Each structure stands twice: as structure tokens, then as C-alpha cells.
């Protein structure tokens, strides 16, 4: 007699299982984290040696340098997050299972946010040393987290679209970077104000823009994600 089937987990259960899987796969392969870190560190060092930065100039340039390194390094993580699933057919395995595609999207977003945070644990202290800046502030930490969510929210859904395309490596940055303009502007401005140790009330509007962007893209993308992965 065929054993009785158990019921599949709910949305949160699916998210938890898929997020754990993302972390386990990345931890084993280190396919993304290492190239990201190498790229970001190299970019920071290149910037540091390219400009003769002193005093006030440092505060003006450092936020842009930091976010350029983060955003370009994130392209590596975002590009791989779906490409390797498509190459190996594991995405079809997940989509053939009784999961809600939205849970898969959120698990990927969470994993990408975590990857960016790990990257920042390396490059923020390095930026502080190279540019002789005080970067360990709560407002900056908040900006980094919110910026990461924005990058991952848009980047993950666009990566799912690009993953089945032939020129996916070129397609992802072309689609992603214009959409990230609000994140780049807000994050750079908030970071600059945090470095200048301005009051939180001055930083808050930029964090508000980031928060609204994050909420809009995470919600919308989770709802329409199934359209981007279905064939």
C-alpha cells in the first residue's frame, strides 16, 4: 500500500528550507563569495592609489567608491544565483516541487543580502583603513542593510530573467544598473552624511527612499516572480 502523503510546508517553511539550501550550496562551493571579495578589494585598492585624497575630499569620494565596489561585486553574486540553477537543472527540480515560486524568490533575495553583508564585513573595515575614515556607525550599518535589500530585490528577479538568455552576463548589468539608480543615489548620500556624523534626521529622508524602494520591489517581485521563471 502506498504510504499516505504528508502535506508540503507553508510559505515560511518553504522559505526557511530554500534559504538553508542557498547557504549550504554557497558554503560548499564558495563560487560567489571569493570572486566578489577579490573584486571589491581590488577595486578599493585601485581607487585608493588612483586618487590623491586628503581631508574633506575623502568624505566626498569614499561613499561613492564604497558603493561602486559593492554594486559591481554584487553583479557576480546575482548573476550566479540563477545561472547555476539553470545550468544544472536544479531550478526545474524546485519548480516541479509543490513550492510557491515567491518563497524561492525571497530565499534567493535573503541569501544575496547575506552575501553582500559578508562582503561588507571585509570591505567596510578595509575602506576605513585605506581612506582613514570612521565608518563604524549605526546609521551606516542601516544604510548598508537597506541598500543590500534594494540591490538583491531587483537583482534577483532580473537574474531570473537573464538566466535563460544566451548573453546573460551582459544582459544582467544592462537591465539592473538603470533600475538601481535610486538605490545608488540614496545609499551614497546617506553614507556620506553618516561619515560626516550628521544628525540622524538629515539621513532619514534618504533611508526613507531606500525603505520605500525595498518594500515596493520585494513585494512586487515576490508576486510576479513565477512569471519570470515559467516557460
Amino acid at each position: 500500500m502506498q504510504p499516505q502523503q504528508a502535506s508540503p510546508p507553508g510559505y515560511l517553511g518553504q522559505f526557511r528550507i530554500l534559504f538553508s539550501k542557498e547557504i549550504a550550496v554557497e558554503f560548499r562551493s564558495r563560487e560567489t563569495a571569493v570572486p566578489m571579495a577579490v573584486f571589491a578589494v581590488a577595486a578599493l585598492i585601485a581607487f585608493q592609489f588612483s586618487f590623491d585624497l586628503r581631508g574633506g575630499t575623502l568624505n566626498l569620494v569614499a561613499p561613492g567608491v564604497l558603493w561602486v565596489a559593492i554594486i559591481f561585486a554584487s553583479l557576480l553574486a546575482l548573476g550566479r544565483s540563477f545561472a547555476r540553477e539553470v545550468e544544472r537543472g536544479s531550478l526545474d527540480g524546485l519548480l516541479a516541487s509543490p513550492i510557491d515560486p515567491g518563497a524561492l524568490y525571497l530565499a534567493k533575495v535573503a541569501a544575496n543580502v547575506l552575501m553582500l553583508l559578508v562582503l561588507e564585513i571585509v570591505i567596510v573595515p578595509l575602506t576605513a583603513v585605506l581612506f582613514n575614515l570612521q565608518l563604524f556607525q549605526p546609521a551606516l550599518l542601516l544604510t548598508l542593510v537597506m541598500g543590500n535589500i534594494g540591490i538583491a530585490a531587483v537583482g534577483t528577479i532580473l537574474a531570473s530573467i537573464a538566466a535563460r538568455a544566451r548573453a546573460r552576463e551582459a544582459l544582467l548589468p544592462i537591465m539592473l544598473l538603470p533600475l538601481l539608480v535610486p538605490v545608488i543615489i540614496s545609499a551614497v548620500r546617506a553614507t556620506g552624511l553618516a561619515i560626516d556624523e550628521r544628525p540622524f534626521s538629515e539621513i532619514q529622508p534618504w533611508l526613507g527612499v531606500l525603505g520605500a524602494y525595498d518594500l515596493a520591489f520585494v513585494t512586487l517581485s515576490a508576486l510576479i516572480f513565477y512569471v519570470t521563471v515559467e516557460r
Partner: protein
Amino acid sequence: MTAEQSGSSSQAIVRCAGLEKSYGQRPAIRNLNLTINVGERIALFGDNGAGKSTLLQLISGLLRPSRGGIRVFGGQPWGREGAHARAQIGTLSHQSHLYEELSARENLTLYGKLYGVTEPQVRADTLISEFGLSGRRVDPVRTLSRGMTQRVSLMRALIHHPTLLLLDEPETGLDATSRQMLAEHITEQGAGVTVVLATHNVEMGVSLTTRDIVLRGGEIIHDSATISDLAMDTAQRRQLVAAHLGGSVS
């Protein structure tokens, strides 16, 4: 009696009506009408590009039809609404659907959890033992041979005790012992389990099933259910399938 008519009972778990699927301008499935009943064992034959894999992917919910309808367990199999149907389907395709970095045990436990299997690790260990891979259960899948990987893929398809098993050329990469193991697992499935087996191996397909369907150009050109009033032995079935395939029996 037509294939559609043959499966018009309330036991039907798959119903395709005027089903069509195209990739760009190229049709892969054309105006396909098919009913599959509970407990049927179906062999799906056809040359490369005949539409076997596409049909299995449509049933499993991986593809959305371009036109026509498909109902699996009473509902559409794709998207959010298809979760109920997909929970009852086990699929084995050309790709392993496995994570190479993870071990066989981890892969099976992952899918077991997603399908809501009670004690997924215990179920994974049981399957690994049955398929003779206990010695390699914690090795990453990338270190396994092609045949071993195919065995893990089959375990993945069976992890949640599916009631509809879709097997796309499951014999690929398997040695004689593993093929025997595969055959035993297919025949051991309970009466409530429906099996659809796409294969180029007519001998194997006919011996493991009770109904033959031959596809050509995305259309059904032979369905043994339409001549079910004639009692045929496996040799006659083989000849009939081979005749429709236009070649010798493999």
C-alpha cells in the same frame, strides 16, 4: 474507441484536450488529446524531438501550454495553483535536478522537506540503502558516477511516495544491475501509482508497462488503449510499436 474515450472514467488523473506547446515558431506538441487513468503504466515512445519530454514537462507543470487544456489531479499543474498537483508527482528528467555540492543524503532530505515528507532524513537513508549507495551517501553528488547520479535522481523522484511517476529515459547511464533495480522499483509501485515512462528502449518500455503511446512530430500516432479490445502479448506490442516507430526493435 479513441484514447480520449478510453480514459473517460472518473479515475482519470491527467486529461489533455487540444494540447499544444510551441517553442517560438516550432511546435513541439500538436493538438494532443490524452487521458491517463489511476494506476496505468504507460510507455511513451518516439524519435528524438517527437515531443516525449515536452509532454512530460507539461504534465509535471514545468511548461505552460501554448494552447489547449491540461488538467492533472483535477487542476492546472503549473504556478501557485499547481502546488497540489505537483505534490503528487515524481519526475525524473534528462537533468539530475540535484545540487552537485550537496551529498545524495542532503539532496534527498532537501526535496523530502519541500514535499513535506515526515522524517525526510530517515526516508532518504532508506532509499539510499535500497538503491545500494549507502557507502557514498555523504559524498558530494559531483563525485558520483553518471549511473550513481541517475540512481540518486530516481530516489529524488520517489522521495515523497508520488502517485504519478514521470520518468524521462530513466535507463540513461545505468548499468545492467542498476537497470534491473530500476525495473524492480517501477514494477513494485503500488496499484494506485501511475507511471509514464518515456524511453527509446522498446523492449524495456513494453515489459514494464501495459499501454503504449507513440509520438511523432508532437502528435500521437499510436495508442494501444485505442485497440485495447485486442488482447496483445508483449511481443505483439513490441512489433506494433516498432512498426509505428518505423524501425527495428531495440
